[in-house]
């Protein structure tokens, strides 16, 4: 069966598109799937760093399009997972170097060789976004439980429907269970009420993601990481498994919560 092409996008920048693409890619490869991760954020290459493959790049996607190398030569093979590959973005060029039909051609060439092609989209709703969505069979929208990210996600939901790539599915990233419990953060249910699309995953805020990204070793490899577990569950759901959605409790202990409460009280009195 040819690969499913899944574009990861968000509207707003900084919500975790690249982190999600890298981790879901790793998690799918851990399931034994053949995965190609394609960085479509031309000019702002980052998926290579998050995957820890930045030192191995020779050619990039623009080199393939402009005929300086073959697709096979530009694909970087991961050393940890033999079925995981990266096609890096160009760092020297900008969005205009890749047209939608270029990316469609590349994906068509990748399809027979892989089970999944994951495309990391540029932020925004302009050229870069449109190019990244053009080859998609499915679209995943990443958002944070926060007003600006949800508003932008809603715009993207509409645009995806307009180009008949919908319905997109949603990942709620960086959920802070403690804040939700205190009534100070939108819960996943709130976000779903507002956006009215299907959920494919909830990822809790997890310092471990930053630390593992610092090392170029995605959290999905880490058995103990809460976010890593969520990314692995997303991969299983994408693969058609019926995995119940996680419920998260405030991870911090009673002592930390008490001291936080006291601190808040004293700062209020100080005002």
């Amino acid at each position, binding site marked *: 069966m040819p690969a499913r092409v899944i574009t990861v996008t968000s509207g707003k920048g900084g919500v975790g598109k690249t982190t999600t693409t890298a981790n879901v890619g790793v998690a799918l490869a851990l399931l034994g799937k053949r995965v190609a991760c394609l960085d479509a954020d031309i000019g702002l290459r980052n998926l290579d760093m998050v995957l820890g493959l930045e030192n191995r790049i020779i050619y990039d996607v623009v080199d393939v399009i402009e005929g300086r190398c073959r697709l096979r030569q530009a694909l970087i093979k991961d050393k940890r997972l033999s079925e995981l590959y990266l096609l890096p973005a160009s760092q020297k060029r900008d969005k205009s170097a890749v047209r939608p039909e270029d990316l469609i051609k590349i994906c068509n060439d990748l399809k027979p060789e892989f089970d999944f092609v994951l495309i990391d989209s540029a932020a925004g709703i302009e050229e870069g976004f449109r190019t990244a969505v053009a080859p998609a069979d499915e679209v995943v929208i990443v958002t944070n439980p926060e007003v600006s990210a949800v508003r932008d996600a809603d715009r993207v939901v509409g645009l995806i429907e307009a180009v008949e790539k919908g319905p997109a599915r949603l990942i709620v990233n960086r959920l802070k269970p403690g804040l939700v419990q205190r*009534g100070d953060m939108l819960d996943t249910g709130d976000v779903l009420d507002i956006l009215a699309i299907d959920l494919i995953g909830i990822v809790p805020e997890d310092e471990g993601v930053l630390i593992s990204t610092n090392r170029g070793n995605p959290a999905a490899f880490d058995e103990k990481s809460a976010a890593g577990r969520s990314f692995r569950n997303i991969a299983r759901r994408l693969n058609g498994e019926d995995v119940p959605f996680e419920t998260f409790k405030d991870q911090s202990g009673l002592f930390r919560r008490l001291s936080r409460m006291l601190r808040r009280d004293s700062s209020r009195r100080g005002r």
Partner: protein
Amino acid sequence: MNKIKSFFQRSAQPSSREAAKQRLQLVLVHDRNQIEPGMLELIKDEIIAVISKHLDIDRNNVQVNFTQGERESRLVADIPLTPKRPIRK
């Protein structure tokens, strides 16, 4: 005492989560219909002007709002008429 007061004050107003949700729901109705919130007021005034050419309407109680379904929304105008002759009971 202060602590108790602030405790009650906090619970009196809706949580920031609720506030975020309500604000999003409102702003998205306008986003999805590509219309600025102030434009709705203008539409309302124009509707009043058109209708009142033909009917006597109670201008102060006209309501024009969007209602939001799953992903479709509609513009609902509620225009009360002023009765021409008093209704006998």
